[in-house]
């Protein structure tokens, strides 16, 4: 039977049931009845609850972290800084497959230098989130503040404070490209306009906050991670290397997610730190962020500053653009 004749046969015998029809979503009943399983709905027996100690400075060295008072809070299992976490979690390497992009290699939990308000510095594990937050408040951090970098254009000027030593000019990707004969288009234009555009960063603010539940089984070496994330396969790959594990030993579950809008497509420090803690202590660890953490410490879509020259014909046709585009990647 040729392809054409089988298609004809299908058109005659099978009326359109879905294409062009209004179809009820198959998943709605569990959302409507409250049975959908979001990350905070995951309960693992024996789980410890995590609360982060976060930087209150935009740019600072950390001289010392005193955890003694925190450890005395009843219900606290432990307080962990870079010293403990880096014994199980190696550095994270971030880059893009372009020669112009600088590679950044960094400790995931950095207890020595902070580059944004909200950066995780230490983690408390306790019998409940309530107790973990009590203890997090008792952690004493001695900061040595540095000049903050708040403006992207100022950050690109010579002499600006340097956020990362491997990026001395604060520019991690300088990419230039050209298409077509730009100079000719500008010569032949009827009008040339120049304008600076500035778009502030956006916050996705999904209603469901981020969360990670990690269960490392010391006996089998298997790790199960539940996370409110949009990219479970990629995150498993990104976590495996630093944790020194094969991907096949990691199961990353993104069950129901309460909105992401791109924000949850990023691999956050917490996505690595929580599984690392589970591996370190040999117990399940649960972390659900609160709205303060989400608004302060979570990634935003990037701020852009654009200087644009536009060559235009008298009838309004755009002929060419020439510009400088600054994308703010954040700390």
């Amino acid at each position, binding site marked *: 039977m040729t392809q054409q004749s089988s298609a004809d046969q299908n058109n005659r015998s099978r009326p359109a049931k879905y294409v062009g029809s209004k179809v009820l979503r198959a998943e709605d009943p569990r959302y409507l*009845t409250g049975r959908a399983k979001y990350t905070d709905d995951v309960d693992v027996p024996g789980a410890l609850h995590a609360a982060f100690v976060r930087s209150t400075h935009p740019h600072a060295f950390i001289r010392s972290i005193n955890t003694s008072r925190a450890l005395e809070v009843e*219900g606290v299992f432990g307080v962990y800084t870079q010293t403990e976490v880096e014994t199980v979690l190696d550095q994270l390497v971030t880059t893009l497959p372009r020669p112009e992009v600088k590679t950044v290699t960094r400790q995931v939990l950095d207890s020595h230098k902070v580059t944004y308000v909200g950066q995780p510095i230490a983690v408390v594990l306790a019998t409940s989130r309530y107790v973990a937050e009590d203890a997090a408040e008792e952690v004493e951090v001695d900061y040595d503040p540095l000049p903050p970098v708040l403006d992207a254009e100022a950050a690109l000027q010579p002499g600006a404070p340097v956020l990362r030593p491997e990026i001395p000019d604060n520019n991690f990707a300088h990419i230039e490209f050209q298409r077509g004969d730009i100079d000719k288009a500008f010569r032949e234009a009827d009008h040339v306009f120049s304008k600076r555009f500035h778009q502030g960063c956006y916050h996705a603010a999904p209603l469901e906050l981020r969360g990670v539940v990690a269960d490392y089984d010391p006996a089998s070496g298997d790790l199960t991670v539940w996370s409110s994330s949009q990219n479970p396969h990629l995150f498993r790959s990104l976590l495996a290397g630093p944790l020194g594990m094969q991907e096949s030993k990691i199961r990353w579950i993104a069950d129901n997610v309460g*909105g992401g809008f791109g924000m949850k497509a990023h691999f956050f420090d917490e996505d690595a730190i929580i599984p690392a803690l589970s591996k370190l202590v040999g117990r399940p660890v649960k972390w659900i962020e609160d709205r303060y953490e989400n608004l302060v410490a979570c990634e935003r879509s990037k701020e852009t500053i654009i200087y644009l020259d536009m060559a235009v014909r008298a009838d309004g046709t755009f002929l060419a653009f020439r510009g400088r585009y600054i994308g703010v990647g954040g700390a």
Partner: protein
Amino acid sequence: MNDRVNTVEASAEARLVQLRVNGEDVQGAAEPRMLLADFIRHVIGLKGTHVGCEQGSCGACTIRLNGKIVRSCIMFAVQANGAEIETVENLANGAELHPIQESYREKHGLQCGFCTPGLLMATQSLLEENPKPSEQDVREYLSGNICRCTGYVGVVAAVMDAADKLSSNSR
């Protein structure tokens, strides 16, 4: 060290909290500072009520307490002692959806579902108070519930449809 207690604090400060939840008498231990939302979710074990802000601003935690809609994230469990609570789990009858839930489904009044239980509780309360609301009535009444996915158009359509359904059911 610390004994391996799961999830819920049980300390000398804990009080007994007794509630009637969705028609069933339940009780559990709660420290005075435990939020009612956390009590419902982690002590009673009903996960349909969600926490989105812990500030009383998003409405995801909306439940009915003695008939009135309240934000369970800014109440303490001990404040609710003795109360009648209704959560989203009270709407459906097994696999049979409540007419309001059917309307939300048919009019695409949800996407990720996180705000949905709170909206359903508020919708039920609205339609009891005002069985024939205008669209403006609906938007005003539900203005305390944030949805980040739908843009509310499907939500309003769902509520108007539910109003029709419920008023024709009662004839």
